[in-house]
């Protein structure tokens, strides 16, 4: 899955519900119903509490797993682009660094939501300027939202999130209107309540760009050929936002450089380093080599198996990202026998030794999954899914009545994912577990992209390894978007899992306008899933990062919403 891993947010809906028609509260905490979307003491790009002797200046070199794809936040859907842009661009709201559960005001200082969940009023921060010197105001917000809503058909293939979050484009978009009530207030009216609306506004793809820069870069929806939208292609004047860093240059395939924005509106959060250079380093070994040789300051992602090497080098540090925001599962397609038999699925769940996988492949930075979403996720609850018990697995197989226990099992051959650091090794370990209880595994492998994803989506696989890294830590993002939501009103070809009650429950939960109803519905959805066990959740992990020991005050996040303005170099 290449979609953004922008951030995790547990109580977005709580915020919306709590804020409905209420006055602002000074607390930004979102986990309590008393919290509201309101004035808060922190900005969108806050730093950790600075250490006593912060040193200013220097260049921070960050190794990313790959290059960015475009320089227009609305036209990206990959984590590398997002990782860079979240330091340059800001939206109305943001996630607190290091947290997967707290939302912060960003360009909107506070907001209110109508009791019917349809009207959102955002009060905007005053005195903010874009990096090109133009004013940030309500007109700029309206311009951006209307642009996203009205992307021409030719560009819609590159704007996944605008279509996915707002339910389509133009007349089919869930946004009814976006209006500047005055220079400091924007009103967004939805056609139907959408409880993930607020959290979605924290995604980097919904960062506000300078309208002047958008027009100059042909990103005003008049140019329909994406290759000529220079705002998206790294041309001069691309990536013009309001963030603590400014875009400097993108040498395709080689590096992206951003530089300190000394005029950042929050004077307490001006970056300590002068520049950040992002280098795409695809080879995991070379990220570690670069760290050891002192050429790389921070490797955004390292393989768990490299942790021992990093820990053995006193010049380096491992960065633990804390809360997980991903799930790896044994995906299953219900059109195949014996997978369609629930007892067989339960037997598989009981046959797999999750802790052994964690010890062997995740360097301990993971926990066995007991849900289809990490338990820190909004509305997630422990489900008591089957745990490792080979004897129980054998009994379930016997009870299933199935005689042909042959299963075609797939894994991707040429990729690692944050939730799946060693697909082949994990595949082999699981296969051994399954064969130990009597299954006959027929191994298959395909290249990750496009073959593997194409074929699993088309329903060609019986059982396969796949997972999901969150866009936000909401039940809807895991249960509906990632896994079991219907496609065009029908069960997805991917899982062929038909459960109309689950589908209706999830849709009702997404449209709920009070927290209790939403909570009840999402918990019911989880109960339905527990009964059917349509797939087998395996592991929730946090992908590790590593840095030089002199890199200080970096705040890691399980959702990778990591802001580099807090970082300084102690050298």
């Amino acid at each position, binding site marked *: *899955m*290449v*979609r953004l891993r922008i951030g995790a947010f547990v109580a977005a809906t709580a915020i919306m519900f709590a804020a409905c028609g209420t006055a602002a509260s000074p607390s930004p905490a979102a986990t309590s119903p008393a919290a509201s979307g309101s004035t808060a003491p922190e900005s969108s790009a806050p730093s950790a509490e600075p250490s006593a002797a912060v040193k200013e200046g220097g*260049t921070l*070199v960050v190794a990313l797993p790959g290059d960015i*794809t*475009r320089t227009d936040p609305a036209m990206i*859907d990959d984590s590398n682009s997002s990782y860079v842009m979240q330091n340059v661009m800001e939206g109305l709201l943001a996630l607190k660094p290091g947290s997967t559960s707290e939302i912060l005001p960003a360009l909107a200082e506070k907001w209110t939501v109508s009791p019917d969940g349809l009207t959102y009023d955002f009060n905007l921060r005053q005195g903010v300027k874009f990096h090109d010197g133009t004013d940030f105001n309500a007109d700029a917000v309206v311009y951006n939202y209307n642009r996203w809503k009205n992307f021409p*058909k*030719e560009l*819609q*293939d*590159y704007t*996944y999130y605008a279509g996915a979050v707002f339910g389509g484009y133009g007349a089919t978009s869930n946004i009814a209107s976006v209006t500047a009530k005055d220079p400091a207030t924007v009103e967004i009216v939805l056609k139907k309540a959408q409880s993930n609306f607020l959290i979605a506004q924290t995604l980097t793809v919904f960062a506000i760009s300078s309208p002047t820069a958008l027009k100059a870069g042909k990103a005003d929806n008049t140019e329909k*050929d*994406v*290759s000529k939208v220079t705002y998206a*292609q790294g041309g001069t004047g691309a990536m013009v936002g309001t963030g603590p860093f400014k875009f400097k240059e993108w*040498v*395709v*395939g*080689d*590096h992206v450089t951003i530089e300190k924005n000394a005029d950042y509106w929050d004077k307490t959060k001006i970056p300590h380093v002068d520049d950040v*250079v992002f*280098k*795409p*380093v*695809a*080879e995991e*070994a*070379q990220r570690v*080599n*670069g760290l*050891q*040789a*002192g*050429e790389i300051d921070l490797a955004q992602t390292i393989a768990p198996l490299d942790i021992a090497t990093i820990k053995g080098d006193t010049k380096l540090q491992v960065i633990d990202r804390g809360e997980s925001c991903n799930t790896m599962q044994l995906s299953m397609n219900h059109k195949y026998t014996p997978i369609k038999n629930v007892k067989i699925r339960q037997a598989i769940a009981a046959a797999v030794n999750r802790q052994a996988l964690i010890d062997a492949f995740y360097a301990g930075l993971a926990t066995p999954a007991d849900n289809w979403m990490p338990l820190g996720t909004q509305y997630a609850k422990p489900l008591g899914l089957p745990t490792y018990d080979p004897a129980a697995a054998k009994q379930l197989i016997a009870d299933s009545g199935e005689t042909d226990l042959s299963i075609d099992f797939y894994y991707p051959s*040429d990729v690692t994912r944050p939730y799946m650091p060693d697909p082949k090794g994990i595949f082999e370990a699981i296969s051994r577990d399954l064969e130990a209880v009597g299954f006959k595994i027929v191994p298959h492998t*395909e*290249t*990750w*992209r*496009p*073959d593997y*994803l*194409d074929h699993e*989506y088309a329903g060609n696989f019986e059982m396969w390894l796949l997972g999901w890294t969150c866009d936000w830590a909401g039940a809807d993002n895991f249960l509906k*978007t*990632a896994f079991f939501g219907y*496609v*065009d009103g029908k069960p997805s070809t991917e899982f062929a899992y038909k459960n109309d009650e689950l589908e209706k429950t999830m849709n009702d939960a997404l449209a709920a306008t009070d927290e209790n109803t939403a909570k009840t519905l999402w918990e019911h959805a989880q109960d339905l899933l527990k009964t059917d066990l349509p797939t087998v959740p395996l592991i929730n992990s946090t992908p590790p990062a590593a840095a030089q020991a002199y890199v200080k005050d970096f705040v890691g996040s399980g959702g990778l919403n990591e802001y580099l303005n807090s970082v300084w170099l102690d050298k």
Partner: protein
Amino acid sequence: MLKYIVRRLLGAIPVLFGLSFVLFAFVHLLPGDPSRAILGQHATPEAVARLRENLGLDQPLYVQYVTYLGQLLRGDFGASIINNRPVLSEFAIRFPATIELTLAALIFAVLVGIPLGRLAARHAQSWIDGGVTVLSLVGISIPVFVLGLVFVHIFAVQLHWLPTQGRLDPRASLDVRTNFMLVDTLLDGRPDLFVDALRHLVLPAIALGSIPLAIIARITRASVLDVTNEDYVRTARAKGLRERRVNDRHIMRNAWLPVVTVIGLQVGGLLGGAVLTETVFTWNGVGRWVVDAIGNRDYFVVQGTVLIFALIFLAVNLVVDIGYAFLNPRIRYS
């Protein structure tokens, strides 16, 4: 000679046509669809269908091929399916990096390989000859990426003598004009960065040059030994010519031909080897670009770059053939 060159150039046209067809068929017969690569895991079938239509992938293959040929004839190599940038301009940006690397590797292979070959020939059947043979076998046998990673570990990570990857210190600021780092650093008046660029070039060039070096050393040795046993060499020595003159005028002048042929052929091998070397050393050249493009089923990038590589290979072969005439007056083309 001019007629010969024109004939060779004309002869390249059907070769390129054939190659374009084979490439097109090869790339399109690969399983998978770039639409899914672009749109990701949860794209709807409608979105995939719309993108296929936008990219022209819904057309029959022969229509796509004819359209592609038409584009080629207009000098249009298409655009990357993934980021929509024109293949030719992207190629032009990255190619200097690949040239710099392959040239450095070739220079290394020639400067070390030929003397090694001559040394082995002069001391044929001795321990020196045996040592060169072993070295050659090792050079040929070890895959470039393995050699690259071993070099990085020893010379960069452990000894800190050389950098692990890239073309320049990422903290350095340089006005890139030609994208040849060695040239740009000089144009920018930065001898310090020139040295830095040179240091970045050393390990990848040695890794990439290891196989050609081994081959060149072997061929040089064999060729020198062949010529050494010729009558005219014996005659030259019998006439009392100094050994150095015998070596330069009688042996090497005649031993060059197969060596030059092999050097020419190595250019193709180097371009192929650059694919792996650039990936290992995070070298932002065409090779690394092609690897990514194959993974993404980025049809136009794969087709375009391989075609351009083929053109270069044909051109190099032509230059090598002309080089024969220069080196050996007995060869005349008509």
